[in-house]
């Protein structure tokens, strides 16, 4: 598809989508409007006003916002509706949303396609959504003024109603929808000044919550298409391995099994239900060609990573680290591979027909999903529809859509719609992992204990090299240095180096990618420097933050709210850490004790500055969740490899955070009029270094290795 989708195409699409999904999914409210339980766009009633790709207003007053980002728990659907409804001056109770199709209209300016990641959604979409809302509002006002033969400037709009005060005339948006469609789309409509916001920055209850407490929200795995069959794919236990031959005799004997055949990702088993597919999956005997990764071992990779430190190339240089002398500290940090393990296992549904393909997927990458289907079927983009469902967690795992390829390939082969569901064991063993890494950091303090030089080397597999090749230049992956080279600290001489480990292990982005590792190194090291300089860790950091007032402010706010420095109960200590992510600033204080080799976090306090806040409760929610995600990453989780195979299999040996282990997190949301920045990942990086800094106070041991359970063993 080239150029922009015109209105006719847009309406044709949304109409078709509604009709398609009505067959499969019940619409509990008996409405034709967008269905919040499914994110389906619904049908397009006559007289609807659709001034742009982002919003439709129906005669029944329903405002439908097209959400171009994946709702994976971060509250983006509610956020987008809030932003647009504010400029539109529509009551939030009238607002519904639908997940946008893969289409050029919804391409993200930053990614150049439809992708949800990097905490970019609100910053990237905030202006287009405001403009869309303001433009629609102006057209509704113009339509009312025309009907009343008055000057539009004498009309006002609020709460979904246009009013002409002088004549006491009013008209609802719904009643104006048809007339507004006849108004020429104005350009450069002025936006509200922040003092006029009615929804932005206020409490708006999430629009998806009611459907997430009664089982009605439809995730990818809940997709039902008439005539659909179920599949599972047996994959090579070694990355990059291929099928030599297989014996499906036992699998085919299982009741409900339809077919077994090889596809590019392994051996596909197709059955009448998920259970039969799973049984057949386990019954297929496959002989594999292991390929070049058969001997990959994570212990060996770690040794190699240490050896690679000396070969790192300079990525950024400030001043000259060799020009200063004083007390030099050197520390080396180790972090393991990690799996994302979102609660919804990987899955996708595809229906490959002669006239086109439909894909239903819980994906963070609509365009990539579409391209995967195009590559397999040879069909053009306008024949490939991607329906985004709710995502049962993303965390970066769904920035890769390998599972979409499974479904499209199998559907193409059998000529039926098919849903592929991965067993949890495959989710753990066939992830795109958070890379293992070694961080080597050196700092020099002058005679007064001031930090005058900082060198930081990162050794880790490059994710960008595979996922965004143009970014990987001259051996440098700029994303791999996040959380290091974008330091807020003002140090006269700095030197950042990187080397791609190229381990052969598939790697991907995981919540606050790279920063969740590099911040561990930088913030533990900051405490080491402060200790060596005989300075308070907060005062030491603040002295380096004179040029980063927002960073200094969150550090002070967190320290103050947590009572950092106060006398703690016996056996407890506080640690602090600062972090940057997605243009936002965060500082966290953790209250920690030790239980053998386990760290116990009693409470955390985190101050966040994400610029203009759209929804304060979602900011708190995301921060609480991101801190817990970071704690899960650091406490005892690790992915290890032996003989090219991942050793962990499921939640009993790949440990995640459980209820009893999760601390309460008190969130301080800093007031700001800066433009909005990301909040979905900011809480993840600082928890590990904050804990490590607390552990040092408890037992004098510097933790430079994760997970904590290994470091404390």
């Amino acid at each position, binding site marked *: 598809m080239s150029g922009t989708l015109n209105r006719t195409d847009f309406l044709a699409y949304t109409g078709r989508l509604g009709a398609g999904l009505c067959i499969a999914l019940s619409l509990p409210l008996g409405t034709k409007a967008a269905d919040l339980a499914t994110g389906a766009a619904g049908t397009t009633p006559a007289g609807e006003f659709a001034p742009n790709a982002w919003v439709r207003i129906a005669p029944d007053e329903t405002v439908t916002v097209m959400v171009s980002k994946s709702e994976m*728990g971060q509250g983006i659907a509610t956020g987008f509706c809030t932003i647009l409804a504010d400029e539109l001056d529509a009551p939030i109770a009238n607002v519904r949303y639908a997940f946008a199709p893969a289409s050029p209209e919804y391409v993200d300016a930053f990614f150049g396609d439809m992708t949800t990641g990097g905490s970019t959604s609100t910053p990237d979409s905030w202006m287009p959504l405001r403009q869309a809302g303001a433009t629609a509002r102006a057209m509704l006002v113009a339509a009312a003024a025309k009907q009343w033969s008055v000057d539009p400037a004498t009309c006002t709009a609020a709460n979904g109603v246009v009013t002409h005060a002088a004549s006491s005339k009013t008209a609802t948006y719904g009643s104006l929808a048809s007339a507004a469609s006849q108004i020429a789309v104005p350009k450069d409509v002025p936006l509200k000044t922040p003092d006029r916001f009615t929804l932005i920055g206020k409490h708006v209850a999430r629009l998806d919550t009611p459907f997430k407490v009664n089982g009605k929200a439809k995730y990818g795995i809940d997709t039902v298409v008439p005539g659909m069959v179920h599949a599972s794919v047996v994959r090579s236990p070694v990355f990059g391995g291929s099928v030599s031959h297989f014996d499906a005799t036992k699998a085919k004997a299982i009741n409900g099994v339809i077919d077994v055949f090889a596809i590019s990702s392994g051996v596909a088993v197709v059955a009448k239900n998920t259970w039969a597919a799973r049984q057949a999956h386990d019954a297929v005997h496959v002989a594999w060609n292991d390929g070049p990764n058969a001997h990959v071992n994570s212990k060996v990779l770690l040794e190699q990573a240490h050896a690679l430190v000396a070969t790192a190339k300079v990525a950024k240089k400030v001043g000259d680290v060799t020009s200063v002398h004083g007390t030099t500290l050197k520390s080396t940090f180790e972090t393991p591979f990690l799996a994302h393990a979102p*609660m919804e296992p990987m899955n996708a549904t595809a229906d490959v027909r002669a006239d086109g393909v439909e894909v239903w997927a819980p994906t963070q990458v609509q365009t990539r999903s579409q391209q995967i289907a195009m590559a397999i079927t040879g069909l053009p983009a306008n024949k490939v529809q991607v329906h985004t469902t709710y995502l049962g967690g993303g965390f970066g795992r769904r920035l890769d859509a390998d599972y979409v390829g499974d479904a499209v390939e199998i559907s193409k082969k059998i000529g039926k719609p098919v849903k592929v569901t991965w067993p949890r064991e495959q989710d753990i063993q066939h992830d795109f992992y958070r890379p293992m890494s070694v961080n080597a950091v050196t700092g020099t303090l002058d005679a007064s204990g001031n930090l005058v030089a900082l060198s930081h080397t990162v050794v880790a597999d490059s994710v960008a090299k595979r996922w965004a090749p143009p970014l990987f230049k001259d051996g440098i992956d700029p994303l791999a240095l996040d959380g290091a080279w974008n330091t807020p600290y003002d140090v006269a001489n700095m030197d950042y180096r990187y080397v791609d480990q190229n381990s052969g292990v598939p790697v991907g982005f995981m919540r606050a990618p790279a920063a969740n590792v590099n911040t561990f190194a930088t913030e533990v090291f900051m405490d080491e420097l402060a200790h060596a300089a005989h300075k308070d860790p907060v005062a030491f950091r603040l002295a380096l933050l004179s040029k980063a007032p927002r960073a200094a402010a969150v550090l002070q706010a967190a320290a103050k709210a947590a009572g950092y420095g106060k006398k703690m109960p016996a056996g407890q200590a506080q640690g602090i850490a600062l972090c940057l992510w997605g243009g936002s600033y965060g500082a966290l204080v953790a209250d920690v004790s030790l239980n053998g080799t386990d760290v116990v976090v009693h409470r955390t306090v985190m101050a966040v500055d994400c610029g203009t806040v759209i929804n304060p409760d979602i900011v708190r929610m995301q921060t609480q969740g991101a801190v817990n995600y970071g704690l*899960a990453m650091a406490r005892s989780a690790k992915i290890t490899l032996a003989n090219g195979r991942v050793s962990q299999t499921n939640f009993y040996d790949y440990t995640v955070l459980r209820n009893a282990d999760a601390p309460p997190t008190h969130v301080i949301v800093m007031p700001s009029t800066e433009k909005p920045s990301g909040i979905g990942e900011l809480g993840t990086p600082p928890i590990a270094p904050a804990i490590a800094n607390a552990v040092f106070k408890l037992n004098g041991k510097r933790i430079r290795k994760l997970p904590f359970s290994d470091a404390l063993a």
Partner: protein
Amino acid sequence: MVALYINGVHHELDVSPEMPILWAVRDVVGLTGTKFGCGVAACGACTVHLDGKAIRSCVTPVSAAAGRHVTTIEGLAPEGKEHPLQAAWVEDQVPQCGYCQSGQIMSAAALIKKTPNPSDKEIEAAMSGNICRCGCYERINSAIRRAAHETANA
């Protein structure tokens, strides 16, 4: 053929008796509120009630439910009504991705039925078999306390 009640409705399911209740409910009956998470009773996403007690439906064969009552999230409250926990979940804005929440609520419902006023330790113990990767635990626990409190004062 296995005969059982699901949310009060009698069903005769033409499935192999070993099929876990999870897949019978999802793929055969078409109630998708109960989720697949791990397949080994390690995450709680599939939690349903069997004669009022919380079980992991991913490892419980449908034969074990023969003649008995299975309650899923769809049947926790009568149609058009909400369970006090569901109301508390909304009040405290618990869900993020929401995928685990059916299982969380079913585990919590079994808890407060047996222990109407659970202590924090009892909540942690009863709920630690339910994983939430979004990390909503603080709000899950506050919603359980809220629902227990409001039920006690009703």
